[in-house]
């Protein structure tokens, strides 16, 4: 599987530059009040990233609290069903709290503690990041406020209750499209108001520098483990990687350690909602254009006046009009191919994996699985695909049931 690439230079460690730029993307587009707090965060991050005490504490938490390493599982039944390449699933769904999000919240919460912050805030879409944040806040005894769009609160009721059980306050965001982007706006407003005692744990590789790089580094454990595991299990590197892309944190986490393995094809899967042609989707890399939102320059879903347009996806975690700036850069340099899967295809994959493998995937992850069903049959039986199973689907049972007219 060959990929056209515009560069042969090594990619790992190349971006961002010291000002947070991934090529023309990224940067720090925030109001002045946040510039000094962002610099403090960056300084702390730079310091602790190489601090043996910090790393030891992070590693111990990831092992003993999160349950890492997460397994890499050869889905033999599903592979047979598709009749092509062997499909391995990176089981982030088995992490404590049920998704990859916790890899990042553990790391950022340890930073918050080092910085002496007493209050944690976060935005959430599907609620997975909110749950993962509320979880670490409970453990560290920090006050926790989660911003969540009113639309998402309605469709992710289980996670809302989980956050409350964990002691977090869940604030319903009623502005704009009442989804993830509006929750992010509201969290930023809280942060700028309470910067003295508050740490903002952004849940994906978006936001102003240093968040995209920092969240990537915390999530890259997914790819580091997978790269080792596949060599142990299959004796070689995979032919392709697939992950869903909302803001892009689970995807960059898997992709990053493989970026310089040029024989590994890499696919990021956006949400096509009702279809890219319908305009009702959440696929800025496939169908958007560059702009500035939420502190960085990246591909966005916007109209000709530069207003952000409402997105649609059956999966709340992918329902976001922007995408992490590193993905924008990887698209432009041609290292990653970005594709889109619509709601129906994702739902089909949700059911198939559940029936065939006994694994209930998150609707977000189901987009990555659905792309595997397109890719695998065209590949040889000795080829290998790793799909990032970014989270488990328990939170989505109500959504799926409602779509099928079933009352749970």
């Amino acid at each position, binding site marked *: 599987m060959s990929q056209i690439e515009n560069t042969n230079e090594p990619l790992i460690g190349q971006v961002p530059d010291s000002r947070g730029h991934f090529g023309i993307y990224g*940067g720090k*587009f925030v109001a002045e009040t946040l*510039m000094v707090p962002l610099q403090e965060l960056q300084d702390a991050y730079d310091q602790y990233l190489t601090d043996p005490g910090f790393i030891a504490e992070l590693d111990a938490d990831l092992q003993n609290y999160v349950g890492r390493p997460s397994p890499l599982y050869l889905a033999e039944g599903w592979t047979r069903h598709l009749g092509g390449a062997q499909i391995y699933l990176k089981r982030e769904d088995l992490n404590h709290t049920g998704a990859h999000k916790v890899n990042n919240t553990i790391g950022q919460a340890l930073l918050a503690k080092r910085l002496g912050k007493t209050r944690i805030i976060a935005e959430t879409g599907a609620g997975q990041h909110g749950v993962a944040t509320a979880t670490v806040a409970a453990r560290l005894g920090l006050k926790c406020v989660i911003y969540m769009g009113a639309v998402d609160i309605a469709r992710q009721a289980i996670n809302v209750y989980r956050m409350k059980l964990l002691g977090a306050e869940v604030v319903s965001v009623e502005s704009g499209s009442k989804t993830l982007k509006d929750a992010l706006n509201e969290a930023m407003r809280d942060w700028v108001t309470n910067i003295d005692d508050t740490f903002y744990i952004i849940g994906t590789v978006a936001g102003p520098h240093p968040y995209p790089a920092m969240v990537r580094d915390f999530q890259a454990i997914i790819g580091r483990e997978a790269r080792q595991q596949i060599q142990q299990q299959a004796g070689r590197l995979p032919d392709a990687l697939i992950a869903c892309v909302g803001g892009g944190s689970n995807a960059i986490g898997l992709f990053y350690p493989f970026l310089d393995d040029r024989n590994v094809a890499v696919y990021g899967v956006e949400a096509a909602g009702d279809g890219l042609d319908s305009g009702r989707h959440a696929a800025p890399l496939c169908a958007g254009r560059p702009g500035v939102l939420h502190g960085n320059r990246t591909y966005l879903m916007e109209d000709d006046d530069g207003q952000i347009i409402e997105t649609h996806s059956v999966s709340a975690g992918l329902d976001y009009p922007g995408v992490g700036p590193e993905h924008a850069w990887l698209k432009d340099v041609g290292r990653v191919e970005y594709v889109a899967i619509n709601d129906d295809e994702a739902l089909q994959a949700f059911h198939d994996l559940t029936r065939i493998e006994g694994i209930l995937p998150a609707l977000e992850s189901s987009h990555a699985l659905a792309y595997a069903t397109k890719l695998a049959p065209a590949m040889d039986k000795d080829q290998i695909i790793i799909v990032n199973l970014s989270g488990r689907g328990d939170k989505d049972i109500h959504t799926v049931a409602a779509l099928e007219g079933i009352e749970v």
Partner: protein
Amino acid sequence: MSRIKNCFDKLKTGNHKALIPYVTAGDPDPAITVPLMHAMVNAGADIIELGVPFSDPMADGPVIQRAAERALKHRVSLRDVLTMVAEFRQQDSHTPVVLMGYLNPVEVMGYTVFAEAAAQAGVDGVLTVDLPPEEADTLVAALRSQQLDPVFLLAPTSNDERIKLICEAASGYVYYVAVKGVTGAGNLDVQAVADKLEQIRKHTDLPVGVGFGIKDAKSAAAVAAVADAVVVGSALVQKVEQAAGQHDRISTEITGLLTQMRVGMDA
């Protein structure tokens, strides 16, 4: 000479401070904006900050967020705002107009196209709240080439290093955001403002405007005693909201508040 510099020079001669009202263009509908700008000038406004509506006003509190939503219901675009300024200029050639908004609409139009169109329309300054000087080189150059003043924000968190950087990038005036928070937030502490202004003035001779938390004649007068300009936004936009679409009432309420502020500041 720039209208903004001219304006501050003249005020200085008369020992007055600038009163700078902010309204969102097209709130609650596009027809009101130009007449309202003229009415504000008659009520004592020296410079007008005209808000460009944006779908995701991350630095604004609920009052100005709702103003943007009302304007966007009418699909008021950056181009529409420039048309409003051009119309305003047909009758007022001296009052400076500063556009205040977010970067993305400017980014989509293109920096050069925007700067040319803004200069053509009679805009004097541009304040993009989510654009710190670190990211602003290209836009600043485009604005400067059209003799437009880039206005930047300063915040309570800005240290000496940043104050210097910002004042070097800015012209016209700089805008000190007096509270940590979004627009419409909190109460300002005049002594803290005075201290910060002293620090800022070590780095620049530019006039320093102060905004956030100025609601009435009393707070306007208190800030005018220490700053070169008083910016009032949410308190006015709230009047627009309360008047529920009645143009006459909006105009009366806004000019009423501005007149009181003017009197307080000049006393």
